[in-house]
């Protein structure tokens, strides 16, 4: 099977251990012993797309980035919450 074009990255420096991503997509996200986010699978199947985007949007510190997914049709509700400069 060809490797997925989806790419998931997470910034453990800014993670505040909300655990939201771990509950949302357990196969892709986990936490280290300190509780900071770990990416288990950086190229998950595109079938997880919707859940991945939800995890990205749900992260309270915007510590998750998902690339390689079609975002058209996403509602714009979170447009105003794009990363704010200086946000930890």
């Amino acid at each position: 099977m060809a490797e997925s074009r989806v790419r998931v990255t997470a910034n453990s420096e800014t993670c505040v251990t909300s655990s939201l991503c771990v509950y949302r997509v357990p196969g892709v996200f986990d936490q280290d012993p300190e509780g900071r986010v770990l990416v288990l699978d950086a190229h998950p199947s595109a079938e997880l797309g919707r859940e991945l985007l939800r995890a990205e949007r749900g992260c309270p510190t915007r510590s998750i980035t998902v690339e390689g997914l079609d975002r058209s049709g996403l509602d714009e509700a979170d447009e105003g919450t794009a990363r704010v400069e200086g946000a930890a």
Partner: protein
Amino acid sequence: MSSSCPVSYPFPWAPAPDIPADWRTMRDQPLLEITLPSGDPAVIVTRYKDVRRLFADERLSRNTSRHPASRISASNDLFGDPEIDNDPPRYLEERAVVMRAFSARRIEALRPVVREITAELMDAMEAGPRPAELMEAFAYPLPILVICHMLGIPPADRAKFRRLIDGYLSVTKLPVDEVERCRTQYWDYLSELIASKRAEPGDDLISELIRVSEEDPEKLTDYQLQHWVKTLLIAGYVTTASQIGTGMAVLLHRPETAKELQQDLSLVPSAVEELLRYQIMGTSLGSLRYALEDIELLDGTVVAKGTTVLLSVESNMDEEVFSDACTLDIRREDNHHMTFGAGIHFCAGAALARMELQEATDGLLRRFPSLRLAVPGEELQRPVGGFLAGYAEIPVSW
């Protein structure tokens, strides 16, 4: 709600289990001038997009003690400890020490413990008189027992502990000297508790924090250690207790919705989330911030430097983000509500609270299939003068 005439905050509730009219209309203005219970002025940011942005904005300081910031309460300086800096980088270092206890794995390991406590409380409720009072019989004891388990607090201490916290959390309920007495006694109680754990460490969170502070006193001073234990105890108890009660009251006030959930308990997690969004136990008083600079909102309105700011949890009713926002929908998806905040101060106990709420809701609906409010929902009374809204009493029968 005119901006020239500041309204008193929190807004009055009526009738109890529904959304107050002021919540529905507040986003007509992005910024409202309000008067806090202390009589001090503040503004409240009302729209979801602004609120979520501002939770992540470091120009808003959580440290409301070192500025001429407004107070929540004239008789209680709950958030005004000058020894504690709740801003980064210090805050983040301390928080990281505590948060290892709140990872998904650690929370899931606690789930069976919570289930057991829930079952015991329901046994007692079932054996007791009907109607039962849900707050006293179930909603208060559950999170107390859980947090006592986590922190290694002897069960015998929990009544005392609860009395002190209730007094300590008074906003306008108790006179200044009473609040002060509760604060001092609570602080002394914690000092003794920490000292006994120091002498005899256990397998609990307080002992773990003591280990961290002994290894690296710079990372966590004695004062900070005590402050965090104090905060975890308070935050882990009252908020969850109020929300267990409020969530059940809101649900049971809508018997059809309660039935729907009962018939498909796999909906419990999304129902809990929706009850948190629709949560009418809280107020935005916990989000007190101080503007270090002028900050522009999305529509160009400016929050002036030096203003005390509340970030509205009522933004959960923002129609622009939540369709049919004032309707309870236990199947709602993408429910990124603001009840736990956002950004670096995102509620440390959110995952624990969720798990407790899920276990409580699932447990009650399973054990008592005919659970119902024993009085009309509209007659439920709000407690007066405390930090949280919730309900004073929730009589239930089955």
